[in-house]
């Protein structure tokens, strides 16, 4: 029923079915290599949760992220790439033949593309896990509607916090934006609309505790400038403090930077022979769908060189 399978040895194994992973798969399959993509959920990665993408070229009216993910999968599979839906549990990447342990069995491959992307970063508070789904949320576009007419807090100061606050201000009775500095890092596109909205800014503040029995009821805030603490009643708290690369599985084998990103330059080559890192998981200045896709193409170039 939930069995392990036997797999052939592949030229290329891609871990992660987002835009970086499927572009690498497309290019490698098109060059005649056998390619397997390992995806734990659905094609598209983070992109798949975005309903309208306006900054991927070629779609004059924007494109649905989920559909774009499916198209990327189909595009790669048209040239023979295969997809296995399984969760990766371990990987041995140092030897010439790489081995990847998954919930669906072990995969062997001559080269590996790490395209695991990133996940929302957590606050790291003791009651966060317990209240997650009980008021504590990580995706305003996903869960915002459930807080219609209620009071919510958004934590963060970057673009995602700004867009979340703006979005929620249209739905919720009251939105607080809590940020540890005295100004936002967010792009100018968001700043003016935010100033005109009903969002109340709580600067120089950080959340120090989440309170509530069955359900989040209050958040404790500390004013960083003087250490004073106070509590704010809220129904929901949206965490938008950035993303964390999904690299824990590889941390012992491959150099990561201080934030956990896999160290690789524009060639996508990592410190390990035959192992490449593409998309959000790699150290890079701009994390976008189009730069992830570009990484995938670049990786295929160096994979060809490596496998030759």
């Amino acid at each position, binding site marked *: 029923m939930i069995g392990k399978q036997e797999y052939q040895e592949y030229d290329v194994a891609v871990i992660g079915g987002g835009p970086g992973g499927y572009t690498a798969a497309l290019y490698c399959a098109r060059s005649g290599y056998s390619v397997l993509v390992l995806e734990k959920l659905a094609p598209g990665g983070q992109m798949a949760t975005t309903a309208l993408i306006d900054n991927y070229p070629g779609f004059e009216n924007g494109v649905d992220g989920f559909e774009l993910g499916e198209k990327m999968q189909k595009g790669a599979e048209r040239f023979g790439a295969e997809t296995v839906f399984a*969760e990766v549990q371990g990987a041995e990447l140092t030897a010439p033949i790489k081995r990847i342990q998954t919930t669906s069995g072990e995969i062997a491959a001559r080269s590996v593309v790490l395209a695991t992307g990133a996940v929302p970063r957590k606050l790291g508070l003791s009651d966060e896990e317990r209240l997650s789904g009980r008021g504590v949320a990580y995706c305003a576009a*996903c869960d915002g509607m459930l807080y219609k007419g209620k009071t919510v807090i958004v934590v963060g100061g970057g673009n995602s916090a700004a867009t979340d606050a703006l979005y929620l201000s249209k739905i919720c009775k009251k939105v607080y934006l809590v940020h540890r500095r005295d100004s936002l890092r967010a792009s100018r596109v968001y700043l003016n609309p935010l100033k005109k909205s009903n969002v109340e800014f709580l600067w120089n503040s950080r959340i120090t505790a989440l309170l509530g029995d069955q359900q989040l009821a209050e958040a404790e805030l500390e004013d960083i400038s003087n250490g004073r603490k106070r509590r704010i009643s809220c129904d929901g708290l949206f965490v938008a403090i950035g993303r964390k690369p999904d690299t824990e599985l590889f941390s012992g084998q491959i150099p990561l930077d201080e934030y956990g990103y896999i160290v690789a330059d524009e060639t996508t080559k990592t410190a390990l022979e035959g192992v490449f890192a593409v998309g959000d998981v790699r150290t890079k200045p701009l994390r976008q769908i189009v730069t992830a896709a570009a990484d995938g193409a670049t990786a295929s170039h160096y994979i060809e060189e490596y496998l030759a």
Partner: protein
Amino acid sequence: MDFQKEILESRRPVLIEFWAPWCGYCRRLAPALDRLEKEIGDVVRIVRINVDKEPELTRQYAVNVIPSMILFRNGKGSEQLVNPPSQASITAWLKEQGVALD
């Protein structure tokens, strides 16, 4: 749907997913849930509940983040499983809840 008869009085465990069409994470989860249903549907019935169409049930079971799952057995609902990151994590959670899947 007759919730009392189909869920609470069901002899087979029922896994309910609370979702909505506008929820991005729900869409990502949908194919995994479809695959899971093919694999274990004979042991666990999977039911999808649209929170917009069933506000009463959504309130009653205190669902305020989606996708969330609750396992119903012998008329009782479990703790919620919120936004599972993979199909495998749903299977592992079901086993933790005591569902025999192997």
